[in-house]
């Protein structure tokens, strides 16, 4: 590239310049360097800003080396080589980062001027004869002129190449974007530009759109979205900063099908009175996204409906199902009260069974309701688990005292939980241990906690990206066969007869639900006759 910029070979070899260069090299090197430096500062050439990090001494040393290089080449009569060398230096000095053409030529002119001035400055020290002086000056002028033209040519080519690159990039750019890119002439409502994506996605070409005439926009945009589109373009027209307007609208394809798009529009050209001339836009096809959005909306609606149905069911269960049951027990109760004497023993037993069964069913319905209601409150707050446990123990005071139970507890940490639910959780686990104790043996429950590692979390099928707190409740009760460990959390499931141990079998189901709400887990391990361990694991 540079070789093409080199000027034609000079016809006459300079006579004076090599000798003058030799003279400067031998006698005036420092002064010549200093003069150039002085002139650089005087001229305030833009190139100097790239050297602002250097001290004056460092600059002097750099120029000193360059001067030796220049003068040596000139001394050897290698003028062309000197020109080439200078240009090479200027390119590496980032002369071309001054992107505007006029800046570069200014720089080159200044640099050449400085060299010329420095050369001319010392001529009187070299020759006093005016004839000689004129000869030297003309040779210097000729050389510097060549240098200047070669440099400008070189930099012009560099600049041109870069512009071509930019233009090519500018043309290719819209084609690689996922957007449809379009430009409209607003004065004539004519399409100016469309990228390939427009044809790819909508099937329209510049020709088909041109054929629509001045109302192309009205024809392409869904009637329901037109008002919003016009509103946004009007905003673009009046905005001074040419801000980008974003809107969603449906655009018709060649087969009359609408595509949902997200449009970004702005004014790309205005006249001197700020009147908008060109509208530039990019549109992203979001049809799939919209479909998914609508699908999600529909599913949310269904879910809400289903939740409402569930609430209704819960209400029906609480009211309508309980109503006849209440009557059964109330009348059986009345019968027992009023006509006790008219009933024989068997009659009394039968009646008693009716009362107990209906009571039991009442309790089960209440439990079902408790389960369905437990999901409704989900307010997480930082809780000191020791206090939560204390509250749970308070509700069990009577049975603890009655059974002379001993409960040992290590200090528990504070974590974010739904406090009321965790209180229920602790109560049911403790209640379970207190209930299923060995006959004639005081229940002992030990509560301990620890944070679990990644490996253990993985073994328990928990996400390894979270940290977990595990709380173990170990008791000395009757225990159970490990094969039933999963079964005990299912609603109304019991491992023992209800006459043996009372209850509907809801407690551990509530525990499971509470842990589900906390995105944690509950598990149990047991051995018949040796007690069991209930473990609850909370993400923290």
């Amino acid at each position: 590239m540079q070789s093409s910029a080199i000027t034609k070979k000079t016809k006459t070899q300079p006579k004076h310049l090599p000798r003058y260069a030799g003279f400067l090299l031998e006698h005036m090197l420092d002064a010549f360097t200093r003069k150039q430096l002085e002139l650089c500062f005087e001229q305030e050439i833009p190139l100097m800003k790239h050297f602002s990090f250097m001290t004056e001494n460092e600059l002097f040393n750099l120029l000193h080396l360059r001067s030796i290089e220049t003068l040596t080449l000139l001394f050897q009569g290698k003028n062309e080589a000197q020109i080439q060398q200078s240009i090479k230096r200027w390119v590496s000095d980032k002369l071309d980062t001054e992107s505007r053409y006029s800046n570069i030529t200014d720089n080159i002119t200044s640099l050449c001027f400085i060299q010329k001035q420095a050369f001319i400055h010392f001529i009187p020290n070299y020759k006093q004869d005016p004839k000689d002086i004129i000869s030297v000056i003309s040779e210097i002028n000729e050389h510097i002129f060549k240098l200047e033209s070669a440099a400008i040519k070189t930099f012009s080519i560099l600049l041109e190449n870069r512009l071509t690159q930019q233009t090519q990039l500018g043309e290719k750019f819209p084609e690689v974007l996922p957007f449809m890119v379009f430009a409209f002439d607003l004065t004539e409502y004519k399409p100016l530009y469309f990228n390939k994506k427009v044809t790819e996605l909508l099937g329209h070409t510049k020709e088909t759109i041109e054929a629509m005439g001045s109302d192309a926009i009205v024809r392409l945009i869904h009637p329901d979205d037109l008002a919003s589109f016009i509103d946004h373009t009007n905003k673009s027209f009046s905005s001074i900063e040419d801000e980008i307007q974003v809107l969603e609208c449906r655009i018709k394809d060649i087969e009359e099908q609408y595509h949902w798009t997200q449009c970004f529009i702005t004014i790309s050209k205005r006249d001197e009175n700020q009147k908008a001339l060109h509208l530039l836009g990019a549109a992203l096809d979001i049809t799939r996204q919209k479909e998914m959005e609508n699908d999600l909306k529909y599913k949310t609606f269904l879910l809400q409906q289903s939740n409402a149905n569930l609430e209704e069911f819960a209400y029906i269960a609480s009211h309508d199902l309980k109503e006849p049951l209440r009557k059964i027990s109330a009348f059986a109760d009345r019968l027992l009260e009023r006509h006790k004497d008219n009933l024989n023993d068997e009659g009394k037993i039968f009646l008693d069974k009716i009362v107990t069964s209906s009571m039991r069913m009442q309790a089960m319905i209440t439990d079902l309701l408790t389960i369905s209601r437990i999901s409704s409150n989900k307010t997480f707050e930082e809780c000191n688990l020791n206090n939560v446990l204390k509250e749970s123990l308070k509700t069990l005071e009577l049975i603890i005292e009655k059974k002379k139970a001993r409960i040992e507890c290590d200090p528990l940490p504070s974590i974010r939980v739904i406090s009321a639910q965790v209180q229920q959780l602790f109560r049911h686990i403790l209640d379970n241990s207190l209930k299923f104790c060995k006959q004639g043996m005081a229940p002992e429950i030990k509560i301990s906690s620890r944070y679990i590692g990644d490996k253990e979390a993985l073994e328990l099928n928990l996400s390894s990206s979270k940290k977990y707190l595990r709380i173990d409740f170990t008791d000395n009760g009757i225990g159970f066969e490990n094969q039933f460990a999963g079964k005990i959390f299912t609603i109304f499931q019991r491992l023992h007869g209800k006459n043996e141990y009372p209850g509907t079998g809801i407690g551990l189901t509530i525990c499971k639900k509470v842990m589900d709400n906390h995105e944690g887990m509950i598990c149990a391990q047991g051995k018949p006759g040796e007690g069991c361990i209930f473990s609850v694991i909370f993400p923290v």
Partner: protein
Amino acid sequence: MNNSSHSVLIVDDDEDDRESLRDAFLENQHHQNYIFIENGTELIDFLDKNQKNKHPSLILLDLNMPGKDGRDALKEIKSNKRFYHIPVVVLTTSTSLRDMQISYSLGANCFITKPNTYSKLVDITNCIAKLWLVYPPSA
């Protein structure tokens, strides 16, 4: 006491419940003029037709009834200057907290879930009578 002019309205769509309730009151010798009403519409009609000095001393109101239910009737009674002073005790099968909140916000004087046994009902009616039933000084 038997010929007391004070009346107690028992508003419930369930005949058994109406009778049980009256019986429970009578167990503790609370002899009043018990009037059975089957739904909200009938209740409002009854109150409207009644003369000013013959307002009932107590209304026992079920919530879920066909047509105008207990909530609607309660709202009308408690927002009407003529009736709002009449004590209304809501007696329902519902255990829902929401029903309780709604009832109190509409101005109910008490919300009670119907008990499962008759003996409990007797206890409850006795309490209600002591709180809201006015007996003549001679009684």
